[in-house]
Each structure stands twice: as C-alpha cells, then as structure tokens.
C-alpha cells in the first residue's frame, strides 16, 4: 500500500511555524521529519512517523506554492487563493526575508550577481547554512535590490512599501542594498571582527547624511531626476571633501588643531599622552580617507581604511571607548575654532557621520 496522493487544504491556510522554519532553513522533507521527531513531537501528540511525514510534505507543498507570492509580498495580501490571517501573512513575509548573520557577512558589499551566486556553495560549506537557504537569502537580497534600485525617495520606505517588512528588517535591507550598491569591502580579515549590525549602523548614518537623499530634505526641485536617491553617495559631496585636505596639508592648521584638542582634553583623557603623540597620524588618516573618496576603489575600501587608520592604532594603545568618544567629539568640534578653515558645514557633514561610525566600529 503506497500513498499516491495525500493532501490537506484548509479554508484558512494552516501555517506551522516550526515546519516553516525548517523549510526556510533549507532542510529536505526527510531531514525535517527527522528533526521534528527529535524535537519529541511524536511523544507529545501520540502521532506516528507516517503522520509526521505526511504533515511535513503537506506544509512543504503549501510553502512551495506560497513562495511565488512571497517574492512580491503585496501579492500575498491581495491574492485570493490562500486565505491567511494578516498576522500570519506578516509572519510568513518577515521570516521569509529574515537572513542569517553568518550569511549576510559573507555577501555584504559584494555585487549581487551571478558570479557571487556561484560562490554560494563555498559560503554554504563555510557557514554550515544549507545551500538552499543561502540561495533564498541571496535571491532575497538581489530581489530587493532590483526593485528599489531605480526608485526615488527613502530607501527604507521603498523597501517597506514593496516588501511589507517590519521597520527593523527594512532598515537591515536598506543597509544590504546600500552596501551592495557601493560595494564596500567587508570581507577582509581585519574586518572580520565587525558584525552585520555594525555595518548596518554605519550604512544608516551614511544614508542619512552622505547620499543625495540626505540633502534632498531641503526643498529641491521636484522635477529633477537625479536627486532623492538614497542608494548612491552624493558625488558632489565627495568631490568637496577634497577641500578638507588643508586640515592636514597646512602645517599651521594641523598644529593649531592639535593644540586645541590637547588643551581641551588635558586631564580628561586616560590615554592623553598616546593621543598627543598620535594626533597627527590619526588626523591625517581621517582626513585622507575623506579626500580619497572620489575614487570608487577608495570608497570600497572605506571600512578597511577606517579600521587601519584609526581603529587599529587606538586599539593598540588600549584606548578605552570613552576616551575615543571624548577625542572624536573634541576633534570634530575644535575645527570650528580654526579661523583659517572655511568648510565648517562640509566638515560637520563628514565628521558627524564618521564619528558615529568610528564609535560603532571601535570594539574588539
């Protein structure tokens, strides 16, 4: 006796959260059944393995049919075929678009292309995440990227509108899309200590301050086509950053800056002497990062540079985070007292964001 056909269709589509998770994690029906058996469900419910097998198959089939709709979540809401309560719809979407930290760290900043997709095998082996799950996560990234790529307006809002994600998840996707678009390098060995959260935090700051969308908040011409983009860094701004060069190129200005910072921080900093000794190096590092951002290559290496030029030197001198904060605050603020320096606004736009990023990046 073999079961040729075995289906269950409810007027309200049944969603089993546990099975959904197994499906999302890319387990085959057989593996999923084995995992469910191990969870002790048979003892709890008195069911047999055959029942579990049939139930799992059924759920997998349902998920497979829903997957097409999950690719465009608004469709899931408006479709008539599966009657799913809104709370369950939200759960289906949120979980489908959720991703693994380990996975996202592997592809963050990489071009979401076929080439990267081919590497998924290796990522799967490396992270222990099933290839199927890797594919889903990668395809999600790519899908979101494709949809919002050409759109105007807030990146987070666009994602939320077209994928109905929660605020948190939409922000994460905004970071992923932003990183993919600007191809920031995140995979270098010295960046391994950084979490996705760290990058996402920086991405958010950069989107808020360094993109075209950021300046778009001021009343701009609504007809202009280029503005209001959250994806790309503001080219003009990057060009202007060259002006900051004077802060390190002009010897007097650099000395003045240093003395202002040192005066203000004397006695307040545990690592004052180290700071004093390193000030010029650190300042040069930070300002050079800014001036190089006109080159795409250097934009990509932004995080590598920040870690190399600032995080690592401080860390080797055992700066506590509070001292880093004090220093960066003072470092940024003191520029306002430099009479010969005319690019205060530019400096604030640059340093405001950079300060936030650096504080986030500064940890073990």
């Amino acid at each position, binding site marked *: *006796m*073999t*079961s*040729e*056909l*075995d*289906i*269950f*269709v*409810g*007027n*309200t*589509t*049944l969603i089993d959260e546990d099975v959904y998770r197994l499906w999302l994690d890319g387990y085959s029906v057989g593996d999923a059944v084995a995992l469910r058996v191990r969870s002790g469900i048979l003892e709890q*419910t*008195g*069911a*047999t393995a*055959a*029942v*579990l097998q*049939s*139930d799992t*198959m*059924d759920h997998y*089939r*349902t998920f*497979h*049919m829903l997957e097409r709709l999950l690719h465009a979540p608004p*469709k899931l*809401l*408006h*479709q*008539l*075929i*599966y*009657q799913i*309560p*809104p*709370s369950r*719809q*939200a759960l289906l*979407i949120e979980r489908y678009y959720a991703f693994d930290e380990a996975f996202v760290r592997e592809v963050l900043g990489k071009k979401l292309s076929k080439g990267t997709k081919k590497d998924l095998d290796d990522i799967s082996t490396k992270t222990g995440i099933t290839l199927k799950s890797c594919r889903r996560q990668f395809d999600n990234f790519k899908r979101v990227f494709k949809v919002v790529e050409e759109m105007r307006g807030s990146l987070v809002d666009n994602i*939320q509108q077209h994928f*109905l*994600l*929660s605020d948190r998840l939409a922000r994460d996707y905004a970071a992923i899309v932003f990183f993919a678009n600007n191809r920031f390098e995140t995979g270098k060995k010295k960046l391994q200590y950084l979490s996705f959260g760290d990058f996402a935090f920086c991405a958010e700051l950069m989107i808020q301050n360094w993109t075209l969308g950021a300046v778009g908040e001021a009343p701009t011409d609504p007809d202009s086509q280029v503005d209001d983009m959250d994806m790309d860094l503001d080219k003009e701004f990057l060009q202007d950053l060259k002006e900051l060069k004077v802060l390190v190129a002009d010897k007097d200005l650099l000395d003045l800056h240093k003395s202002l910072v040192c005066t203000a921080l004397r006695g307040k900093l545990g690592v004052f002497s180290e700071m004093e000794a390193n000030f010029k190096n650190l300042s040069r590092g930070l300002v050079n990062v800014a001036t190089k951002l006109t080159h795409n290559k250097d934009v990509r290496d932004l995080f590598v540079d920040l870690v190399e030029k600032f995080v690592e030197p401080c860390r080797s001198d055992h700066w506590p985070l509070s001292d880093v904060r004090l220093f960066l605050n003072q470092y940024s603020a003191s520029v306002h007292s430099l009479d010969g320096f005319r690019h205060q606004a530019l400096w604030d736009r640059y340093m405001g964001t950079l300060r936030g990023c650096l504080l986030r990046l500064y940890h073990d």
Partner: protein
Amino acid sequence: MPGKLKVKIVAGRHLPVMDRASDLTDAFVEVKFGNTTFKTDVYPKSLNPQWNSEWFKFEVDDEDLQDEPLQITVLDHDTYSANDAIGKVYIDIDPLLYSEAATVISGWFPIYDTIHGIRGEINVVVKVDLFNDLNRFRQSSCGVKFFCTTSIPKCYRAVIIHGFVEELVVNEDPEYQWIDRIRTPRASNEARQRLISLMSGELQRKIGLKVLEMRGNAVVGYLQCFDLEGESGLVVRAIGTACTLDKLSSPAAFLPACNSPSKEMKEIPFNEDPNPNTHSSGPSTPLKNQTYSFSPSKSYSRQSSSSDTDLSLTPKTGMGSGSAGKEGGPFKALLRQQTQSALEQREFPFFTLTAFPPGFLVHVGGVVSARSVKLLDRIHNPDEPETRDAWWAEIRQEIKSHAKALGCHAVVGYSESTSICEEVCILSASGTAAVLNPRFLQDGTVEGCLEQRLEENLPAGCGFCHIPYDELNMPFPAHLTYCYNCRKQKVPDVLFTTIDLPTDATVIGKGCLIQARLCRLKKKAQAEANATAISNLLPFMEYEVHTQLMNKLKLKGMNALFGLRIQITVGENMLMGLASATGVYLAALPTPGGIQIAGKTPNDGSYEQHISHMQKKINDTIAKNKELYEINPPISEEIIGSPIPEPRQRSRLLRSQSESSDEVTELDLSHGKKDAFVLEIDDTDAMEDVHSLLTDVPPPSGFYSCNTEIMPGINNWTSEIQMFTSVRVIRLSSLNLTNQALNKNFNDLCENLLKSLYFKLRSMIPCCLCHVNFTVSLPEDELIQVTVTAVAITFDKNQALQTTKAHVEKSLQRASTDNEELLQFPLELCSDSLPSHPFPPAKAVTVEKTSPMGEGNFRNRSAAPCANSTVGVVKMTPLSFIPGAKITKYLGIINMFFIRETTSLREEGGVSGFLHAFIAEVFAMVRAHVAALGGNAVVSYIMKQCVFMENPNKNQAQCLINVSGDAVVFARESELEVVSTQQPAANCQPACTGGEVTT
C-alpha cells in the same frame, strides 16, 4: 422582455504576462450572455488594466436569466494572430432574481483557465432589472429561493413544509462527442463546464416550477448531483424539500407576533373562506397558542386562499376530522390518520431535511434504504429522460414501502446517490422512516388545540424514540422496553437514523464518529454478468456493514446512531462499503448490553483462555469508552415498576440484529428467528472482525468527532472554525489481494487519514470535528481514493464541563415537567422554536470572552505591517450555522463546477501538488463569489464530487470538482445589539438560566 441584465467590467489585476517580448499584456474582455456578446476596449501593455467599461446591457427572458450563466472571457489582443484567451469567469446570476437575496454582484473574481488555473483577477459589477410583476414569474420560477441547508434556514420560519421535489435532466457529455477528437482539451473542458452550468440552471428552474405548483416559495435541503455516465451521457439530478417560508425580519419583531395571533389574522383581508372552528380555536385556548412560537393564523389564511385552486395537495379529508379532534378523542390515532391522509396524497412523502422545527418529528422508525444495480445505455432522447426517471421512481417506491412496513408514513433525512464504474451503476437511496406532525404539512385543517394537547402528552426529549409501529405486528423481531424517560411508551433498544440529533433529545455524555468499513473483491466481468455479480454481493455488504456498525456502537457503550450514511462504491474488481454515523447514548433507550464472544471448540483449554482474554479486552474497551464519552446514565431504581421483565442485565450478544429497529432493506438483517446468538470465533474472518473492532483508536484527548451538525454534549463553541478538505489516494499492491488484506488497507487508510487530521489540527484543541464527510471512490483498478470534508471547531473546555452538567439537569427537569409547568412558562417553547439554534442567548457573553482567540479578531491584530489587506475573510463551513454568530441574510445558492487539467503534471508538483492547488483555487473561487454577493460566509458547504484521473506516464491529470452551499451574511453575536437578546431573555428563557449561571 422581463429582465435587463447589466454588466460593467471595471479592472483587472495580477494578469499573466502574455507577450514575452514586452513582459506585458494587451487585455480586453468579452462579456457573453445567451447569444449576445459585448467587448471592452483593449487596454494595452498592462498587467493591471483599468477598463472601466460602460454598462453592457442584455435584454433577456427570465427563463434565460435562470438557465444561463454570465460568461466573462479575458483575452490578450494580438494584432497578427488569433487572440489568446487568458481565462474565464462564470457568474451565476440567480441570486439577483429574488428580492430578499443580493441586489448586486460586485467584486474581484479569479480568472480561471482549465489548463493554467487561476490567472489574475477581474473586477465586475452585475445588476438585474426585473420589469414585470410577480405573476409573470410563474412562467419561469424566478423568486423561488433555494437552500442547501437541510433545516429551516435560520432567519426564516416554515409556514408549510410541502414535501419532496425532484427533477433530472440529461445530455450528451461533450467529452465523449466526436468533436472532442479535434478540439483542444481547453475547449472540451469549457464546453463541459458551460453545459453543466446550463443544465443546473435548467434543473433549478424546473424544480422551481414544481415548487410554485405546490404553492411553495422555497426549496430547502436542495441537493444537486452529476452522474458522469461516460459514453451514455451526463445526468444532472436534484432533490429537495419544497416549503413555504416566511422571513423573520428580526427576533424582536416576531416575538410579539406570537402573542397576538388574532391581530395578524385581521390584517389578511383575502381570507375568503374562513373556517369558524379554526378561528375560534385560537382565542379559546390562548395560552396554548402562545406555547407555540409561530402564530398559526397565518397558515390558516394561506390555506383558505389557496385550497380551492390547489390540485392535489390539500387533503380535503383532514378538514372534516378537525372538529372531531376538538372533542378530545384518541389523539394519537387521529393524528396519524390526519397526517397519513396529508401524506398519502403525495407520490413520495420524503423530506431531505435532517433537522426540523420543534414538534415536527413525532416518531422515528429507523433507517430505510434501497439500492439497485443498473446497466447504463445511451440516452437516446435527452428531452425525455424516462429511463433514469423510472429507475429513481422504482427506488423511491421501494423506500416508501419500507417506511410503511415500519408503520411510518414519511421518510426524513432522505438522500440519493450513485456509484458508476464503466457501464454499471448502483443507485442508492436512504432515509429515516418517521411519523410527522401534520401541522407543518398541510394548508390548514389543523387545530392548534388538538395538537397542542397531544404535544403536552408527549414528553419532551423522548417522543421521537417511541416506536411508530404496532408492537403486536412488528415488521421485524425487536426487543421493546418502556421508555426510560417517560415510562409510558415503548422504545426499541437501538435506534439508527439518517437525521441530525433532534435538539430536544436527551443525550447522556458525548457522541462520537462511528465508521464501518468494508471491501469485497469481485471478479472482473462485463455487462449483465457484472451487474449480477454486484447485485449478489450487495446484500452481504449491507449485512457486514450493519454488523460492524452495531458492534462498534456497543463497544462505545452507546445506543443510537444519527446521520447514518452508507456509501457503496463500485470498482472494476471490488466493492467498497463505508458507513459513517454519530453514535450517542439516548437517555430514553435502554443501556446497551456488552459483547460476548464464544469459541467454537469449548473443550480446548488454551483456546478458551484466549477467548476469555479477548472478552476481557472488549469489556475493558467498553468501560474505557464509557468514561471517555462520559456515559454514566442514572441507575434507574424504578425498574421494578417496569412491566416488561427485560433481561437487561444479561449482556447482549454480538450479531444479534434482532434487537434493532434498523434498515429494512431487501434482506432481512434480523437473522430470522434466531433470537440471540454468541459471536463464534470459528474462523480467521471472525477473528479479524474482533481485532478490527479493537484496533480502532479513539481520537487523542481534546478531540471529538461526529458527522452530524453538532456534537451532543458540547455546546459552548468558540468562533474559531477551520473547514478543510483532505484527499488521499492509495495504490494497492496487486499481488494476490485477499478480502482481509483489502479490508486492512482500507481501514488503515481511513484511520491514518483521521490521525493526520487530528495531528494537523492539534493547535485547535479542545476541538471537535463536525460534519465529517467521507467519500470513497475507485478511480482505477488498484487505486482507492478517500475524500474528507469537515469543519474543526474549538470549544471552551472549562465551560463544556459545567454546561454539560447544566444541560443534563435541564433535560432531566424538562423530562419531568408536567403541564402546569408548561403553562407557567408559556414562552419557553417560543424561544426554543428558533429552529435548532445551537446557542442560547446567554452565549453572547461567552463569545465576547473567547473571541480574542478566534478568527473574528484578525482584523484587530492586523494593525502591524499588513494592515492594508483588501481581501475580506470568507468563512466556509459544512454546518448550517456559524458558531458564535447569527446569520442575518441568505444571499443565494452557490453551485459551482470546475474542471482542471494539466499536461505538465510533474512540473506542477505531481498529483498532490496539482490537486492541492486546484482545491485551493476552488475554495478561492467560492469565496470570491460569496464576497461579490456581499456575503462573508458559506454555510452547508459540500464538495459533492471530486473526480480525479491521472496518467503519470503521459504527465497528465484531470480533475472535476462540484461544490455547493448557501452564501450568507453573518454578524458576530457580540456585535449584535445586546438589547435584542436581552429582551426575550428577560421573560421567556427560564430553561436557559442554567446556562447563564455558568457563563
């Protein structure tokens, strides 16, 4: 020109990409009704076209309005080649033809293609303007309401229940016409869908005409079926119960009305032939009139206005006997005489109802059924389907005579079915023989006085169990005892019925689903030989099924079966029998005896031991079941008073059919004169039987199941319901199949299916599967297909315990209620007579309390990201009601037929993927139609057919599904104004106070 149909095509969405080059579609729409077609403009390059068309107007006969479906075809415009069809929508406009139902059909309909399934949606608005007066309708039958519900619909009252209506139409099946060889599968499927739609429209119209002839205005319990006879044609047949229904505008409005019957009478001016006796009876016994909720005056007036024109339905004899009754003669005899005369006028005194207005059902005799094996031949003249008519007439005649043999003049819970394999067809009909109260049956001649006094003599809760037949001249040997409730009338010791449990029946404990399953191998044969072989097997199958049911019932410690449905399915090389019913313990019937086993060779010691071991196991199971289903009848100390020295304490014996009042089919199931015998384990077969008895696993704790509308003993449902369909097909290994192996396979199939359901629905615990409906078919040689549709309803566990107790108390109290008490609470029956309303008004509180868990609150929960959902929830249920809610309006019948075919079975996920998607699509289309009618639920939903055929080698499959139900609008009880429930509750619900205390 009796009607103008107006259609507007608004927009489309989610259309499929039809032009690969642009990834877009140039869609336009054809709207067709009858022979007229309109087209919209092409909306270029969009998957979400906005046509916003003008109103397309069709001027048509009302006959066409009833028969024809509105056909909407969405196409992709192609400049150079033929336009490609995207899909179609068929809209049945029947609900727009009667005033109380929907006024407009407006909404998003899935665009359906028989090859690709649902491909996007289209927004359509449909209206009908009817120009003529009501009289004109009589030529068609517009205005006759149809209900699938097999009880009086909730917001109506039955003025008269006229009786049986049936009709069938036949045609050639397009699939078997010569043209099918040259046309595409899509064209063939669409031709079939359209033909069946037309045929059902025609059938409905014809039935409507019969109803109008009978002076009714509605058909209740309408059941329409298709017989796909293959080469020999396509039969669409329907049965139903013609009624005259009155709309209850609101609960508040009808309650006062029942207190003032005379006032209402004055309002009817055309009362030409007033019967003075009739009129005086009202005021002379005012209190008794009030006992009845529904003022009888209205029915009088109808009678008088119609009696002179009525053809054969008004029993003139009843008129005379009326006055005699007032003198207080032998009521029962008179009643019978009256009813009989009322019913004898009818060709078939059958009723497709399974639940009845209070007082309608007087006595129940038992199940009557008849089967007949026929050889199909080509239907030569589709306009005169005489052969098929004659076949059914024959069977109905048989049923009628069976009922008569049981001393009954009517058959209730009546249904008909067929099973076809190649050219052999088994026709089956079954029902429950019963004695009915004539009050609802005839157009007058009924004196409230007579009946009511009679009713008072009949104790509530047990009257229907009392035998209708003469105990000295019983149709079969049966053990009778005095009723355990009233101690006045005789009752059988076991009762089988096809109806729902009457609401006033006193039940102890809970009920449970009982199934008998059986397979019999049959040699492959042709034509006559085949038919003969089947005919010969049938009696044995009936006998076996019956024995199994009886044994399983006893094993559960119960004494009555409700909702019994025995399905015999014929295949190439086997016959399958599946009987489902809900077992209960009726307080009025005696405690069932146990089961005793005896060995063949009593001298063999070890054998004896084995037997006694089995016996112990059986006894243990019975004891366990009694505990599980809370069957603890009060030990009656009055047995001494019983004049019948019934050897009740002695355990009853297996296979002693003699004790039952059951099916009177062709065969005598009573084992002749052999009054009692022991189950002899004399062969492996018998051993198997006993084993299979013991292997039936009870549902896991927290689960109950029944195949009736509601579960006795549970009455605090929450609003959380889940309707589902589950289909399983197994392939038998063809190697030397034996009957036993087959039985085991089939048994396992059903048991596993149930287990899967329990597992799947475990999150709903405590929960009851209601209206569990199994259908078996044998699509191929080695395939068995089982389809189950049911609804799972969560109930509140804590309250269940309390209210059950209260319920028992209440029923006990009721049983002892004498006339005086009845007079003190004259309105009690009034409230009860809301036909079988399963929720006492006190429940409103319960609902509010439990609803946060139910589906009803999804809208509130949706506050999160998905708040902008536009799709309204449509509930579907096979029951006639929605738990925790009140049906406020019936919008019309839903009767849909779909075909789905694929030539890429593997790509669509194999047979399971294909059928899963199709059933989901069918649900979606039903919901969309209901929503477009303005409804939010389908009640009495049934999947009447699910014919699945596969050819995996060719990567093909085809499936036909037929579903029906009643589209309704419901409102949550908590949403309804509390005032309306409070008002009656204040003064006329003494019986419910028990329930109120517990909430």
